[in-house]
């Protein structure tokens, strides 16, 4: 609890939000990279289907997405059974893990789309050149594709992070709004609004706004200044 402009606000939801957003970004970059790479390389028309699937979370209302994730991740459901099989003890819903998993689904397009476009822009010729220098597929990916996709990663990371910070519906459904555990800033603000504590809501919103603006400006600034130009 700290006081800002004479209003008491709890910082827990802020830290939690940053933590969840950071994890989500990390995981999505990790999982999104091979997915995006695979998609960037695809030639068939099935690429279109995949692109559409990846874009789906954009279209689905987050509460609806959250509702179905809630059903799918039910502790007696198949997914949890399956994870149990690998020694997973916990529960996917109502925990930080759950929030992160939900956010990963929710923000998928924001990570995969920029990465895919960045990967598509890496000239094939550079990969060919690397191959003639005895670099195998993985080697080429790490030494050529990744460094040349810097901007794509920056955009993917910002969008994912930003979108997770701002996410509400999925988190509310999957998380259960448990203080210190799954109560993120977006829900906290909403709770303040619901319980008529408008002052707290205003302060939190303002903090979020300023923080986001600063982060975004930094990122766009870096992007403009240090983008590696290819070609």
């Amino acid at each position, binding site marked *: 609890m700290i006081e800002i402009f004479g209003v008491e606000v709890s910082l827990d939801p802020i830290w939690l939000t940053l933590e969840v957003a950071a994890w989500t970004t990390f995981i999505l970059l990790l999982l999104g990279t091979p997915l995006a790479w695979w998609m960037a390389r695809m030639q068939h028309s099935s690429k279109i289907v995949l692109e559409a699937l990846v874009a789906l979370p954009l279209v689905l209302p987050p509460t609806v997405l959250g509702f179905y994730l809630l059903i799918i991740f*039910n502790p007696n459901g198949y997914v949890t059974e399956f994870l149990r099989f690998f020694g997973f003890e916990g*529960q996917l*819903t*109502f925990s930080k893990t759950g929030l992160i998993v939900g956010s990963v689904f929710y923000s998928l397009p924001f990570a995969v789309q920029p990465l895919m476009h960045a990967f598509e822009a890496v000239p094939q010729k550079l990969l060919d050149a690397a191959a003639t220098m005895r670099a195998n597929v993985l080697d080429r990916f790490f030494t050529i594709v990744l460094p040349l996709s810097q901007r794509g990663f920056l955009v993917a990371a910002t969008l994912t992070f930003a979108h997770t910070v701002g996410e509400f519906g999925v988190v509310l459904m999957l998380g*259960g709004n*448990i203080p210190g555990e799954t109560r993120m800033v977006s829900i906290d603000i909403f709770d303040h609004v*619901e319980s*008529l*504590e408008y002052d707290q809501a205003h302060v939190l919103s303002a903090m979020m706004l300023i923080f986001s603006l600063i982060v975004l400006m930094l990122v766009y600034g870096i992007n403009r200044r240090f983008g590696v130009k290819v070609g």
Partner: protein
Amino acid sequence: AQTATIAVAANFTKTIEVIGDEFTKETGHKLKFSFGPTGKLFAQIKNGAPFDAFFGADEKRALKTIEDGTGVNGTYFVYAQGQIALYSDKYPVKEQPLEVLKKAEFRHIAMANPRTAPYGERAQAYVKKMGLYDGLKSKIVNGESIAHAFQYVATGNAPIGFIALSQIVDPQSPIYKKGEYWVVPQADYAPIKQGAVVLKRGQDNTAVKAFMEFVQSPKAIEIIQSYGYSTP
């Protein structure tokens, strides 16, 4: 001392936080509250949410948990009874509530969604009973919850609305001592009983047991009433 996680209907947020503070002070047990729309909380409980007790905004959904097997039989009780008030900062609702409703000179009237919120359902039933529904029908805007309906009124987007008395008498409320209100006579609508139930997960938790008792103690009832609810 133990810790309990309790799911609470959003409209009761403020009240239960105050009760909770008192409770912790007295017993040392810690409480975590999870607020949300009742239907959402219900869906979560059904899908394994880690809640020890459930304070719904109506009777229906707390009872349904017992039916579904997630609630503990015999622990159900009504912890509060909501009261509907007609509020406006433009129209003389205190003196001539029904005339204002009849003339319907306003563009919008806010109430909670009758499908999802008991306050909304009762408010709708009331205007129907008074034969005012047809005149108002096109002007009704529905908040998803009673808190939401309140926002419409408090932000001036709806000049008049059926909201909860608790939202008017709360000293922190943005409309506290602004505008005027009229409490709808309890006799004209079925009581909005808010039911609570202990959930399977919390049945052995002493904190839960203690809290359920505390909520029915005179001290708690005093707090509940001070926030504009009546008690059974």
